[in-house]
């Protein structure tokens, strides 16, 4: 009797969830479709890309397109430049926002609230509105075509400071009191206690910082001329410009540029949603 009931309940659940699965799968297919077509087209010979109706499956995958994308333009160099830039920015942002967030959470100092408001106010200044003076600064420092020029303007982030402060505020006061009693200075408390307890928040910030830096377009466009200093984003845009006829190779290059971030996002999936649930959403 009970087994019958269980089976019936399972059957009902399956029947109810089948349409749900259909929706899920169809939605996933729609979202993934551009990626799928890009993957397919990146493996086609150029003749297949110019035909109508379009092909949905590569009969003879031309893996050589990927080799072309890596060798016709200095793609490895572009990837290296993006890697260096994104790493420097991420490390910089983590350093500066951890320090600032710590001060705003655990320290008392004059004008603390006013300064925090000033920090927040930087989020209201659209960066795109300040490209001209920022560019002029880099130009005057003769930092065009350098890693400093690419990274220094982005080493601080109010969003990161805010995110970390939200998290630090959830740590119990007693920890600081205990540390004070034990004679821990601020730096030691930060390094030995706060940071180990904030790994998730730091990981979230790291993922977002790296992603944002890797995907930047306008700034690298302005401050790099030398092909050796180009980042991967500018690289595929210029590849598209140069090789208008060889769209398949261009798409292969695009896939190469996308893959690292795709891995990052998939591997760190849990940080993306959970990191934001920690209250940052409420603005």
């Amino acid at each position, binding site marked *: 009797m009970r087994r019958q009931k269980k089976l019936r309940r399972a059957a009902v659940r399956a029947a109810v969830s089948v349409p749900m699965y259909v929706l899920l799968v169809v939605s996933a297919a729609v979202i993934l479709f551009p990626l799928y077509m890009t993957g397919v087209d990146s493996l086609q010979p150029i003749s297949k890309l110019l035909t109508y109706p379009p092909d949905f499956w590569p009969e003879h995958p031309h893996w050589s397109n990927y080799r072309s994308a890596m060798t016709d333009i200095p793609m490895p160099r572009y990837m290296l430049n993006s890697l260096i830039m994104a790493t420097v920015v991420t490390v910089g942002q983590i350093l500066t926002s951890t320090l600032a967030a710590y001060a705003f959470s655990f320290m008392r100092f004059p004008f603390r609230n006013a300064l925090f408001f000033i920090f927040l106010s930087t989020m209201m200044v659209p960066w795109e509105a300040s490209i001209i003076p920022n560019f002029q600064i880099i*130009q005057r420092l*003769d930092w065009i*075509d*350098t890693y400093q020029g690419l990274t220094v303007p982005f080493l601080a982030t109010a969003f990161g400071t805010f995110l970390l402060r939200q998290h630090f505020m959830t740590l119990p006061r007693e920890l600081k009191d205990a540390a004070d009693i034990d004679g821990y200075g601020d730096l030691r408390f930060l390094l030995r206690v706060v940071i180990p307890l904030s790994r998730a928040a730091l990981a979230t910030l790291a993922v977002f910082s790296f992603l944002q830096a890797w995907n930047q377009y306008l700034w690298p466009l302005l*401050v790099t001329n030398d*092909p*050796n200093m180009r980042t991967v984003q500018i690289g595929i845009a210029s590849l598209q410009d*140069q090789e208008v006829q060889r769209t398949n190779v261009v798409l292969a290059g695009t896939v190469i540029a996308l893959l690292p971030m795709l891995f990052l996002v998939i591997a760190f999936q849990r940080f993306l949603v959970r990191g934001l649930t920690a209250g940052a959403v409420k603005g």
Partner: protein
Amino acid sequence: MRRLALLLLVALTAGFAGCADRGPRYADGRVEVRFWHSMTGVNSNALQKIVDGFDASQDRYKIVPIYQGGYPDSLKKLVASFGTRAMPAMIQLDDIELRFMVDSAATAPPQDFIERDAAATGTSEGYPAPVDLSDFEPRALDYYTLDGRLRAMPFNLSGLVLYYDRDAFKDAGLDPDKPPTTLEELRADSEKLLKRDSSGAITRNGIALSIDAWKFEQMLAKQGALYANNGNGREGLATQVVFDSPQGEAILAWWQEMVRSGLATNVGRQGLQAFLSIITGKSTMAIESTASMRTILSALGPASARFGAAPMPSLASKEEGGIVLGGAAVWIMSERPDIEQRGAWEFLKYATQPQVQAQWHVDTGYFPVRVSSWDLEPAASLHRDFPQFTAARDQVLRSPQNIATAGAVIGPFTQVREAIETAFEQVLVGGETPRQALDRAARDATRAIARYNRSVE
């Protein structure tokens, strides 16, 4: 693993290095002369050939060619590099940047070097002799000479020709040796060349037209019409445009009518699309640059005999006007150390030798900068194999030299061209009349010129 670390270290030091070091750059014991260019594909290889030839002919300088995108992109990067180490010693730019570059006061005119060479006695450096301009293409020199001084070295010259499908002409009962010489004739021929299928849809029409402000400029010059005031900006600073003349309106009107009636296809802004149209037989004619002639004809191989090339048609009159032979030129930047500038000048002298130019012509299809190159091998063979080049050459040699064909000199030329191209789009897609579109383009262009002139005075 260690190699990766080493690579990383090299990249980091290269990238982070550079406290302002304004001295000349060296590579392998030679002075490194950076050359920003906009050549791609076959033309880029041809450029590399010239660079290699120069490097092999001496051991003092090393030219480093760097592709910086199209001319506008390259110029944008140049302006961004003013006052920084990133500035190159030489840059190849569109003809229209003449006024802009002269106003920058950041270039070293070839005239200076020519005079210095002429004054120098007993130089034992073994370079090609000082330059004698008499063998240079006079129309190109006309273009780049302002106030009696040559400001930039013409480097790659091209013109517009009418490409046409000889087989299609025969098929329609037209004489393939008598292509249209006026826009009116082109229209009439297109009507005969038009083919429809059973349902009435057009399967082949007369001409594939790509939108390019340069074409508008060339067509105006062909009528002897001016583009800007004060003698096209050569007798005095140009303060307004005058292309909203009856000739300008007539060109736009013809264009609009051809597209509207289906005799022409508007293929957008890419010349490549026009070529594809005539190769696939969708259209039978195209008015395009000779700069791609080499690439296209080689790609077609023996099938290239199917296409003929003729001078660009004029408006309605049967007089032959001329073409503006600006093309692109190389500028030497005076911010770089003297020795780099000298290296750039020596390279330009080498690159403009008759033999080198003959090879350049054959490799790319660009017109040689030296008149004597036309008759040298391998250029002579090229003309035998591909008579289309002869047609292009004849158009150049017959072009009269006057104010119209000397070309307009305007500071914010890019913005003026944008205004023209907008006018084309307005007329073809936006539904405006040619007069309305031209008036607006003239207003926008003149406003841009006024602002520019004010900012550089």
